[in-house]
């Protein structure tokens, strides 16, 4: 078990190195950022100074060494556009994304679990039909469109909620709702089908033979087995909350990581893009390890694996 986790961490570390190299190359390939800063009146000396200041006068291998040693110290360099440390910009934006992503994640997962289980337990009932409808619509309608339509209805027409921005509790309703709409359907469908498979199992029949209550059968015997599949997906969803928030943050003008990323990408603001990419990748890999450990808790067979 501990060996298994050590191997997973080692693998994650290797993947992180791979992503570091990839990001470095991709970002350099995206063009020279000095073009975005210089004005027509800039003299060649000024441009050279700027390049030196940004460390762009060095060779690529040298730049890579600087990049990596910075990473190790937790420094990502300064934003080319805003002229302040990328780490600082992330520090400002990240809490906003967390405030948006965490509630959305937990609401979506709780709903997915409750509705998925309900639909499976009452198969072919009106609940099941409702859940299927939500799933079908949720997977077909573009989330950004639903968000805009919700904005039109609740903010513009009914004037119940603010159009955009962050601040009061009311500001959270639409963005969080949009993200829940993104996250819920796939997860709910997965929980439902996973649950249906498990409910067909012989050990469920044996649990009924024992005289256990339907609630115990579903929540104790079926759910724990049915969660093994969806757990991976939940981990993946959690790890991708930052990129998953991009569209929501753009629509609702939410000052979080997603918006920062799109702004940085369109402005070719290397250090910021690098910093965000590394953070997203690290979160992804970290989450994978968390999921592996969670697996071991749910599935005793993994816990007892010696090799």
């Amino acid at each position, binding site marked *: 078990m501990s060996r298994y986790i050590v191997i997973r961490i080692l693998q994650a570390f290797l993947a992180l190195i791979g992503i570091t190299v990839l990001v470095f190359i991709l970002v350099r390939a995206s063009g020279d950022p000095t073009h975005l800063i210089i004005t027509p009146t800039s003299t060649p000396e000024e441009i050279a100074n700027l390049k030196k200041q940004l460390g762009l006068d060095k060779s690529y291998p040298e730049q890579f060494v600087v990049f990596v040693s910075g990473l190790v110290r937790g420094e990502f360099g300064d934003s080319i556009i805003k002229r302040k440390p990328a780490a600082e910009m992330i520090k400002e934006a990240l809490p906003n994304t967390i405030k948006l992503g965490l509630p959305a994640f937990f609401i979506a997962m709780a709903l997915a679990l409750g509705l998925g289980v309900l639909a499976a337990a009452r198969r072919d009932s009106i609940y099941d039909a409702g859940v299927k409808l939500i799933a079908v619509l949720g997977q077909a309608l573009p989330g950004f469109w639903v968000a805009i339509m919700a904005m039109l209805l609740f903010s513009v027409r009914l004037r119940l909620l603010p159009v955009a921005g962050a601040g009061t509790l009311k500001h959270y309703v639409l963005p969080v709702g949009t993200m829940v709409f993104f996250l819920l359907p796939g997860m709910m469908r997965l929980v439902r089908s996973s649950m249906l498979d498990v409910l067909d199992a012989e050990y469920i029949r044996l649990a009924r033979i024992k005289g256990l209550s339907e609630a115990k059968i579903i929540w104790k015997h079926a759910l724990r087995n049915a969660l093994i599949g969806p757990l991976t997906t939940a981990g993946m969803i959690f790890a991708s909350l930052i990129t998953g928030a991009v569209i929501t943050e753009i629509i609702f003008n939410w000052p979080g990581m997603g918006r920062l990323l799109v702004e940085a990408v369109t402005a070719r603001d290397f250090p910021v893009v690098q910093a965000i990419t590394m953070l997203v990748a690290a979160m*992804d890999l970290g989450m994978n390890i968390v999921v592996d450990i969670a697996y071991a808790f749910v599935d005793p067979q993994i816990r007892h694996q010696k090799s």
Partner: protein
Amino acid sequence: MMRVQITKRTANVRPRKKSRPRHIHVLKNLTFYLPLLVLTLLVFTAVFADVLAPHDPVAVSMQERLLPPAFMEGGTKKYLLGTDQLGRDILSRMIYGSRISLSVSLAVIAITASVGTVMGIVAGYLGGATEALLMRITDISMAFPPMLLALLLAVVFGPGFWTVVLALSILGWAPYARLIRGETLKLRYTDFVAQARINGASSLRIMVKHIFPNIVNSLIVVITMAVGMLILAEAALSFLGVGVPPPAPSWGYMVNEGRSVIDRAWWISAFPGIVIGLVVLSGNFLGDWLRDKLDPRLRQL
């Protein structure tokens, strides 16, 4: 969001013995014919866009900007679904937009399905170090956040048709590879493959003549199920401004354009979104139907 999630569980999947009420049976057929009709219409519209569209999709007419649809007060028959901020006809733009959605999806499917199939069959059939290497690459591809990569690529190569195709393809092959490898592994130990080996067939011949024909059904199902997802992904990229660049009328971009005038002209955003939803819905239903017919084992998809 842009990745086809294939979570095929290892638990033994047994056919359900329960009977289904009759109305579900009728619905099942409807969920085949209606989606088929919608998708046929989509292809027809895309092919004959220049004949069908009543107006030039990029013709600006500032006097006729923000006109509501014909059925609303102030709308005219000239612009059935109204006009946008630049006075361009929404209907015509949507008709031309079908070309972008369809061509991007088809190009991505062609690339991802063929790359994924080759990787999957080779990994599954050859096994050993080849398999280990290919599957590691697949794992990494599936772990990479697709949105992030798409944004990066859009900047590296500049927005454009092939950038979008590349952004959606570069990770999109991985789920195919994983699925096809699984199918190949099952076939690898069947008697007819063993027989072909005994008869001295080369690895290449076995993969092409014996393995591939047996995975075609699974492949068709997964491809159909990917259509909806790709159309959504293309729309999302366009929405973020990294899709096929304007003035080309992409559906996702149209939704975004309407955002700033949503309080005055809801139709600019609303109609393209409805069409996206309808097409994706059709693709998903058709995929489900085909899966039930061709390969019920993929129910988890």
